[in-house]
């Protein structure tokens, strides 16, 4: 199969950049969390692609794939915690706008 794995990497980078921009400019806490997931998945896709390229070059190691599985599990846990935090934020500040969360300044 002649597939240009560079395209996979481009998709990965795009995912990551969309996620990063969303993370910075969106003001809804839930969408910020979703952007975080996008970044995660961009990174995961990149790792898997590199592993695939490696496999094509004759290696038989699947470390990248396994690492990504671990990553996905971690991302799930992280999202669960993130959602819990979002709920708590909503309870405390009664808003999910990130603009309101400037308590770090005091």
């Amino acid at each position, binding site marked *: 199969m002649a597939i240009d794995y560079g395209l996979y990497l481009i998709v990965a980078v795009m995912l990551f950049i969309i996620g*990063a921009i969303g*993370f*910075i*400019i969106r*003001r809804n806490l839930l969408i*910020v969390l979703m952007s975080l997931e996008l970044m995660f998945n961009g990174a995961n896709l990149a790792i898997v692609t590199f592993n695939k390229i490696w*496999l094509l070059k004759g290696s*038989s190691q699947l470390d990248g794939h396994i690492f990504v599985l671990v990553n996905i599990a971690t991302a799930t846990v992280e999202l669960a915690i993130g959602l819990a935090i979002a709920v708590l934020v909503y309870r405390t500040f009664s808003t999910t706008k*990130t*603009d309101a*969360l*400037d*308590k*770090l*300044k*005091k």
Partner: protein
Amino acid sequence: MEERIYVGEWALSLIILLPLSGVILNSFLLSWGGYILDLIFRWIINRVRLLGLFFKSVDKLLSKKYPDREKLPGIRSFLLRDEVLTSVSLGVVFTSFLLGLVLWIFHLNPLLEQNPQGFIKCLLWNWVIFNDENTPIIEVAFRFDRLSFIMIMVVTGVGFLIHLYSVGYMGSDKGYRRFFIYMNLFIFFMLVLVMADNLLVMFIGWEGVGLCSYLLIGFWYSQSTNAQAAKKAFIINRIGDAGFIIGMLIIAYATNSLEWVEIEKRLNQLTNLKIGGISLSALASLALFLGAIGKSAQFPLYVWLPDAMVGPTPVSALIHAATMVTVGVYMVVRLNFLYLSTPSVLAIVGGIGAGSALFSAIIATTQNDIKKVLAYSTISQLGYMFIGVGVGAFTGAIFHLVTHSFFKACLFLCAGVITYALKGIQDIRYMGGIKRGLPLIYWSFFSATLAIMGIPPTSGFFSKDDIIVKAYFTQLYSKIGDGEFSWLSNLYFVIGVVTSFITSFYMIRLFMLVFEGKEKFRRNISWQLHNGGFSMLFPILVLAFLSIFGGVKEWLEGAIPEPEFRVIPSKEIYIVILSIIISISGAYLAYTLYREPSLKKVRFFSTQFPFLYRLVYNRFWIDELFDLVIVRPMRFLANLLYKFIESLLIDGLVNLLGYLTLGISEIFRLILHGNGKLQRYVAYITIGFLVVVLYLGYPVTDIQAEMDTVGGLYIRLPAYPGYKFKLDFDGDGRWDEEVDFKTPTVYHKFNPGIYNIKIEITSNWGLKVLKNIRLELEE
């Protein structure tokens, strides 16, 4: 011939994909599809003259015909109407049904004998591919053979009728569109399940129908009892599904495959491997049967089904009576070769089936909610099917599955009409006398009742007696051990007959209380079915017709391989007559008890044996037992873990970390002033990160030069991967040499003089930097 198979494969995948496309199309129209269509139409109207004129005229016509409150453009408002959604979702199911029929005519019709293989396989794509060549590919493939054809007919046929019924039943509901999307999704997953070519694809359907069941039980989710019931169904099914996964893993481990054909070929590998004296095939089939217990609501995991009756009645009819709950039977029949290799497991299957049949039939005699009676009756009838499977009467079990789907769906739909007409009353103590108001429903219900009682010549008679007779004559259990368990078949036979007595009793009780006697409800009911009278009545009449005349076993004959039965015809006749007499006597008992309006005789029973009555009325306290044995200890343990492990240890640690961070950040806050907005900080971090990355991409200009004695200069360039270099030795503006990182050392000979050597370094990021070296060479 070949071309025909090709077409067949396409039709095969279409059968499955059509309901899915219904789901997608309707969801699309429901969400932002309307707006996109609107945009497209507007664009066409503005840009393309001819088409635009056409669309405009259609638009005007439609907006005259369907004036809309929201003043949407005509085409869009037309596409967003309920009629469009209804016809899409009914249409796809019906087309699937027709396609299934066409496929059968072209490929599997035994008369034509065009397909000696007996099945068509359609490979959609390879799902999991391993590098290891010994491990097979897991395919997303579907299979069309006589068994799956029967199931497709039941799913899409009965499914279509119930869809049609729902048009009337759910007509005034706010969630009308959501309902039809869920129903189509259910049909899709159900078709995936019954047409799967391997266990994993079947599992997708298995989980999918579970999901749809959950969504539809909790359809009116704003009431907490409904949400609770949905959760209960889902969680209890998890137990069964865990069994299914374990069984699947065992089979995959031992036979290295999941396809039906491959498993059958390599059955030896399963039976030969043993753990602690038990063969893996027994373990696998037991584990898979646990899945069947959960999905088909058998003892002890049946408790979710009665609760599931809080969902809309069409759902109870389609999912919790006719199709989804029967997939356990289908699965065991599909894996008949596996189960036949371990008769002892089949004995357990039959035992669980017999237990559930008897147990839930007993419970059904005292319940007062019309739908709950029918739910317990469903469990009982499923128990029958498992008796059939357990004794090896696979054809009988599937046959009973089909006829049960007719008569039970009919009963449920009738119950739906009654509760609809009585504006929500479900308690049979407040019904009575409905015969006068709804004569057609009365006759339909009556014919379905005859079918479930097994009165000849209704369909239920043929299927039920097939199971009972084969339970008596089965040879399977004499193969277990030294034949010391062969009495089991007699036991199952006796339980089957006793259950048919109780079945007749509770069905006639239900029938008498609902339709006969005085009217006990105190509301003014106008006996007119409101909108959609046809859509509700037509399916009921068709199903009533089928429950009487649907008992045609011939087209099932030979679809499933079966063990041999030594049926003695002279004895068989006695058994059949016995079972008819017994079921009629049960009916007669109920008739005499419930004929009187005062129900004196019934009260006599409940007062004479109060404990027994309360035991049955409270469903043997099984729910409470589960609550006490499983739910409470679980809650207690969870509380314990929450209070000590979670709150103290984990939260303590996390809080400690938090306080630590707070403390440190307190210090930093004193030094720096931010605006406190985290995202601003993240932006700063990102910019900083980009700077670092750019710095990393900035070419390294680490050049070393070395002179030799004859005026030659070695230039060692930084050999990082991807770097390219251009060199200009004499300073005339033209590049003299271009190299890359693979040849990092350049040699050039100079005559004496002053040189301005220019080196352009391009990094792997494409960034360029120019480096000048001044060289003064004396003689």
